[in-house]
C-alpha cells in the first residue's frame, strides 16, 4: 500500500496520509477499547468464586467395607468410590486391553488398586449407571450397568458392551490416575477436587 501511495506522490498530499494515520489510530484504539471491554463481561459467566470454592470434597473411607461402594456428590455430579475385592482387582487386571473399545490398563485408572474412584456418569448420554447399591444389577462383568441404553462396565469401570464410547471418567477427565483430581490425604481420607 505504501508503494502505491508513493507512486501517486503521497508527498504532494501529506495532510491526507496524516489523516489516514489518524483515522487508523482512532480505529485501532476504538477496536482495542471494545475488545478489552468485552472480556470482563463474558468472564462473569465463568464459574464464580463461590462455585470454585465448593469444588473440593473430602470423603472418609473408613466406613466403606471391602466390596462396598459409596456415591458422593462432587461438582454437581456423582462420584463412584468402590472398595474393590481382590477378585475384582484380579479380574480388572487380567483383561486383554487390545480387546477394549477404550483401551486402558487398570493400573492407569487407580492410585491404589483397592480404591476405584470414577465419575458415575455414563459416557453415552449421561445417565447414572446402576451398581452402587447392594441388589443393583452390576451387569455381566460385575462392574456397573446403565439401564438407559444398556451400557456395561467392568470392575475397572471400562466400557465392555453397549453404546457408550468411553470408560467412566476419572475425576478431572484425565487419561492417567496420576493426573486425576483426587488425593489420599489422610489415614482413610480421600480429597476429590
Amino acid at each position, binding site marked *: 500500500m505504501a508503494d502505491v501511495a508513493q507512486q501517486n506522490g503521497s508527498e504532494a498530499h501529506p495532510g491526507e496520509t496524516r*489523516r489516514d494515520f*489518524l483515522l487508523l489510530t*482512532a480505529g485501532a*484504539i476504538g477496536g482495542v477499547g471494545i475488545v478489552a471491554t468485552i472480556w470482563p463481561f463474558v468472564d462473569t459467566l465463568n464459574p464464580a468464586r463461590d462455585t470454585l470454592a*465448593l469444588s*473440593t470434597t473430602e470423603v472418609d473411607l473408613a466406613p466403606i467395607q471391602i466390596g462396598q461402594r459409596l456415591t458422593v456428590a462432587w461438582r454437581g455430579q456423582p462420584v463412584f468410590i468402590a472398595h474393590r475385592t481382590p477378585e475384582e482387582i484380579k479380574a480388572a487386571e487380567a483383561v486383554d486391553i487390545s480387546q477394549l473399545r477404550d483401551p486402558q490398563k487398570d493400573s492407569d485408572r487407580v492410585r491404589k488398586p483397592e480404591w476405584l474412584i470414577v465419575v458415575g456418569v455414563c459416557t453415552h448420554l449421561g445417565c447414572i449407571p446402576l451398581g452402587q447399591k447392594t441388589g443393583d444389577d452390576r451387569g455381566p462383568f460385575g462392574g456397573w450397568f446403565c439401564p438407559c441404553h444398556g451400557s456395561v462396565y467392568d470392575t475397572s469401570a471400562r466400557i465392555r458392551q453397549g453404546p457408550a464410547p468411553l470408560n467412566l471418567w476419572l475425576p478431572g477427565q484425565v487419561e492417567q490416575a496420576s493426573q486425576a483430581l483426587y488425593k489420599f490425604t489422610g489415614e482413610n481420607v480421600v480429597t476429590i477436587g
Partner: protein
Amino acid sequence: MAKRAFAAATVSAFVLASAIAWAADETLPLPRQEWSFDGVFGTYDRASAQRGFQVYKEVCSVCHPVKHLHFRDLGEIGYSEDEVKAIAGGYQVTDGPNDEGQMYQRPGRASDPIPGPFPNDQAARAANNGALPPDQSLIVKARAGGPDYVYAILTGYKEPPAGFKMLEGMNYNEYFAGHQFAMPPPLSDNAVTFADGTPATVPQMAHDVVTFLTWAAEPNLDDRHRSGLKVILFLVVAAGVFYAAKRKIWAPIH
C-alpha cells in the same frame, strides 16, 4: 457568552446550596480520618485489616455477624491458605441434616460463610434487650459518612452533658443522631493483644477494625482503583486521538 456565564453561575450556586443543605444535620460534623484506601490511588493496608479482623473476632463478633463474608475471603487481606483453614477450623458450623435427620456441628471450612453469634434475629434480640446488633458486612456502606462515621461512633462515647436525660440502658455517643446509642462502648485500651505488637489503643483498634470493615463491605476496591486508572488513561488517550481525528475531518467544513 454572558448567557453561558449566567447559567453556569446559577447552576453552581444551587449545587453549592444543596451541598450545604445536605451536610447540615443535628449532630456534630464528622471528623475526617486518613485511610489507606482514600483517594484515587488508595489500597487496603493489609496489616491494618488483619488487626481489624482480630478486633472483630475478639470483640465485635460476640454480638455482630458478618454473614456476607466467607473464610476464603480472608485470603484477600493477606492470610495464607493454611492460615485461613486454621481460622475456619476454629469455628463450629451447623451442617446437616445428616442421615438421621439431625442438624450437627462440624469444624468450619474455607468455603463456609463466617458464622454469626446467634442462630437468628430473634435470638440476637433476646440477648440484647430487644435491640438487634446489625450485620457488619456492609455497615461502612450503609451509613452516611462511611468509614469516618463508624470510626467516630467507636471513639465518640462521652459522658452526657449536664441536663441531658439518658434513657434507660442507652449510652451517650457524640456522633449518633439523637445521642442515645444502644451499643455500650465496645473498645477499651488493650482489649486485644495484636500479634504484630502494635499497641492496642482505642483509636488504633477503631482505625484497624474500620479498615477491616471497609474491606468487608467493598473487597473490590483495590482492583477497582487499579483497573480504573488503566481505563481512564486509555480514555484520555482515546479522547485525544478522536478529537484530533475530528478536527482533521472537519477541517474542510470550517
